[in-house]
């Protein structure tokens, strides 16, 4: 019975692991904080849900292991493994609670508070902890059942659980947006969403709807695709045009319907997408790792700030439409200026040198040394909003000029500016990628020396990569300035540069749609999840790791990267690697 023993061990191991994760979630305080939010109102809180999820996933994993030890699926074996994993998780949590009654965990772990244990013991002291193994078994069996369901049902159900959970997570957002609409929709919102989670009826509706749609879809999608293919070419095109027009219409109307917050998030995503598109040229196309990209963003922002501000640092009080192109030009020049010294520096040396530039720009902008020009720590405030129409006269410092016409006052208006710029820049980047210059960049990325031997002028090509990348980032900075209405050096942190690099890789290096997808995933999601505030970056970090493990080529990889990944299986030193000669020897 070697196999059986093996399976037992795997199940227990899985259970232990998920138990440790559950205890971890308790100790970082997440369970307690999340217990104030509901997934389904009055039924299950978010805190309960994450604890339960650990046990359920232990069940799933154990059941999968059980099915792998044997070729033919034996439901009993799987159920046994799932239950074992579940009970192990439960016992571990129970042991943790018991331990906390004996020794004061709080002297080390701040979150191991009495209120956490009150919550975990249902306010009943240790007399209730036998519940945990029982709940563990139930959850483990639930996981196993989920796993054992035939494919046809399993997929819709897991999908439905996941989507219902997502709806619950974002329920506040949906509720707020819908409540601001007509009274019918507001009523619907209150029916579906509670203050902090779904209502019971809402949860059931979403669950059933997703199951139904996804079952219907899996049955029909093939037919639909074939049906689409059967339509004559012209018909296909017109359907595409209609879909495209619909999409454009949604993009146009979105801020009006969704309100300013969603607009603000989209603006920020677009700004990061602009920076991402810029860095995608330097890093994605030309392979030059830049960890100080925020420098160009800062240059664009400060240029517009200085040119348009009606505060004391405003130089010319010129309109945004003139200032923005100037900002782009200045950033471009700055790109060349910073690119020149690092032309001969490669690989990770380049990364740290550019990181240094980013920090130098931030330090100088916020320093007392240059405060007479850039405001130092007090920043530049009073930045004139863009105005379509004529601007009134500049009267005096601290008073904005009157806009006779359409003023881009808030996120709902700047949305159009940001989205249009992102689309324009994405289009430019797309053209650049397919141009002669784009191919030269990629040649440099693959191998500098070979590229040079092929007659590519390294200096010119690299400088152009820096300059164009900087120009895009500068445009982002320019829009950022008018969005916020003030600039402080504290906004130009290293973390911005890191985020931009991360979003490119997560999206898929060198891929333009990838940049957009990456920006939505890495910038949009955390913005929407602001209310989990203190755990935002914990999720962010975990998500980065998981995305890299699951999809190292990125969410929307370019064709070239895919090819590269396959041929790279041979040697792990990729093309962008610096020379291999530096090593750990004396």
């Amino acid at each position, binding site marked *: 019975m070697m196999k059986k023993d093996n399976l037992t061990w795997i199940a227990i191991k899985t259970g232990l692991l998920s138990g440790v994760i559950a205890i*971890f979630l308790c*100790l*970082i305080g997440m369970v307690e904080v999340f217990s104030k939010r509901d997934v389904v109102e009055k039924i299950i809180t978010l805190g309960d849900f994450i604890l339960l999820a650990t046990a359920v996933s232990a069940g799933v994993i154990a059941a999968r292991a059980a099915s792998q030890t044997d070729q033919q699926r034996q439901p009993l074996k799987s159920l046994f493994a799932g239950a074992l994993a579940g009970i192990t998780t439960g016992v571990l949590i129970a042991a943790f609670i018991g331990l906390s009654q004996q020794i004061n965990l709080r002297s*080390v772990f701040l979150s191991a508070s009495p209120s956490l244990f009150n919550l975990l013991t249902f306010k009943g002291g240790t007399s209730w902890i036998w519940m945990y193994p029982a709940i563990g078994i139930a959850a483990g069996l639930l996981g196993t059942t989920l796993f054992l369901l035939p494919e046809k049902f399993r997929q819709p159900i897991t999908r439905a659980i996941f989507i219902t959970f997502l709806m619950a997570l974002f329920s506040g957002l949906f509720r707020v947006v819908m409540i601001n609409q007509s009274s019918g929709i507001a009523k619907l919102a209150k029916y579906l969403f509670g203050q902090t989670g779904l209502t019971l009826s809402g949860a059931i509706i979403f669950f059933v709807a997703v199951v139904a749609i996804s079952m219907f879809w899996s049955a029909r999608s093939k037919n639909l695709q074939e049906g689409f293919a059967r339509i004559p070419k012209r018909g296909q095109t017109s359907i595409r045009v209609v879909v495209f027009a619909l999409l454009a219409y949604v993009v146009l109307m979105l801020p009006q319907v969704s309100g300013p917050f969603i607009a603000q998030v989209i603006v920020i995503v677009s700004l990061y997408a602009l920076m991402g598109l810029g860095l995608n040229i330097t890093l994605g196309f030309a392979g030059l790792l830049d960890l100080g990209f925020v420098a160009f963003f800062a240059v664009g922002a400060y240029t517009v700030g200085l040119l348009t501000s009606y505060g004391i640092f405003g130089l010319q009080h010129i309109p945004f439409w003139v200032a923005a192109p100037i900002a782009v030009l200045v950033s471009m020049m700055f790109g060349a200026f910073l690119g*020149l*010294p*690092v*032309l*001969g*520096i*490669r690989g*990770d*040396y380049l990364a*740290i040198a550019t*990181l*240094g*530039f980013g*920090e*130098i720009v931030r*330090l*100088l902008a916020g*320093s*007392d*040394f240059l405060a007479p020009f850039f405001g130092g720590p007090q920043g530049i405030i009073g930045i004139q909003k863009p105005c379509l129409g004529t601007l009134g006269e500049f009267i005096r410092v601290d008073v904005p000029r009157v806009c006779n016409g359409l003023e881009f006052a808030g996120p709902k208006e700047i949305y159009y500016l940001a989205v249009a710029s992102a689309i324009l820049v994405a289009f430019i980047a797309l053209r650049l990628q397919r141009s002669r210059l784009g191919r030269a960049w990629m040649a440099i990325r693959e191998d500098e020396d070979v590229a040079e031997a092929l*007659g590519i*002028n390294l*200096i*010119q090509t690299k400088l152009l990569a820096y300059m164009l990348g900087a120009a895009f980032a500068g445009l982002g900075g320019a829009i950022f300035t008018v969005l916020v209405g003030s600039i402080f050096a504290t906004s130009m942190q290293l973390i911005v540069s*890191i985020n931009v*690099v*991360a979003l490119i*890789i*997560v999206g898929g*290096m060198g891929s333009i749609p990838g940049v957009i997808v990456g920006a939505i995933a890495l910038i949009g999601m955390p913005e929407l999840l602001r209310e989990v505030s203190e*755990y935002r*970056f*914990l999720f*962010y*970090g*975990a*998500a*980065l*790791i998981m995305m*890299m493990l699951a999809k*190292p080529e990125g969410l929307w990889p370019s064709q070239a990267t895919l090819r590269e*990944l396959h041929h790279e299986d041979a*040697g*792990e*030193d*990729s093309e*962008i*690697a*610096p*020379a291999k*000669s*530096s*090593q*750990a*020897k*004396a």
Partner: protein
Amino acid sequence: MRTSFGERLLDLAVSGFLWGFRILIVLIVVLGTFLTIRAGKYTGEQWIDFVVFGISQGSIYALIALGYTMVYGILRMINFAHGEIFMSGAFGGYFIATWLTGIGFMDKYPVLGLIFSMLFGMLISTLIALLVERIAYRPLRGAPRLVPLISAIGASFFLQYTFRGFFGPGVYAYPSMKALEGQWMFFGIGILKVQIVVAIAAFVMMAILYSIVMFTKIGKAMRAVSENKDVAALMGIDVNRIIVTTFALGAAMAGAAGVLYALTYRQVNFFIGFTPGIKAFTAAVLGGIGNIPGAMVGGLVLGIVESVGPALFLDSLGIPRPYQLKDAIAYIMLVMILLFRPSGILGERVSKKA
């Protein structure tokens, strides 16, 4: 090769700019130094103090930089989470040191107490580093270079906010050790005890590490793996084990640095790893990344420049609050050194042409 007139002009302009840049920086440095020394604002003792402060800070940078450089040497990967490993060591040391102080052990046997704290800090940081390596890095071996970098950035955030969850955002203060207060006199110059202890501990650790890498079997294997993984594997070296050992050694150094850092500066919280992490990365690059003596040299140079630089170069040029710009000086120095030596102070020449 066909080069047009325009291209040659561009080349000329570029190299002209580069030389101008170098000359300008050197001029500023020389002029600043000259003016400062002529102004005589600082006494000789104060200059020595500046250097001593720099060495103390620099030896901590060097200890952290060792981990960066070792991992880089073997995996060609920037372990961005290394600063957080350092922070975890500081926290580990904190709990043991507080406990030892509480039971009165620390006052009786300060040296033993210090060693225990350091060992415990090293243990914690090593465990965490191995966990991170297992979960976030090992599955990505062989992926394109930037993929593990992003995973490391993720690990860095995750660890930071895990510690914030465990211990809250507040400050933890290391217990003060009576034995480390005050100064020792050397040739009439008073030097803080804590700085001497930090410097000595750092150099001992580095010496141990260096001898492990140079004179033991496992060190030999490490060097072999860093030369060429595939060949090393063919020679019967367990590459995986060597990589794990490297991570463990680097993390132990960072853990020790964490405890030493906390001894010097007293404060520990979840964010203390970030800036020293970046600085140590800079130090590793400065010395030539992948090169162990380079990391030590880089760390010390960085520490001394940060300490001496603002007073020596900027003070007399009429730049207000020069210490606000100490990081800027450090980074400009980095770029200057990379301009003259594109692979760091002790790194080998990698590119044929600047």
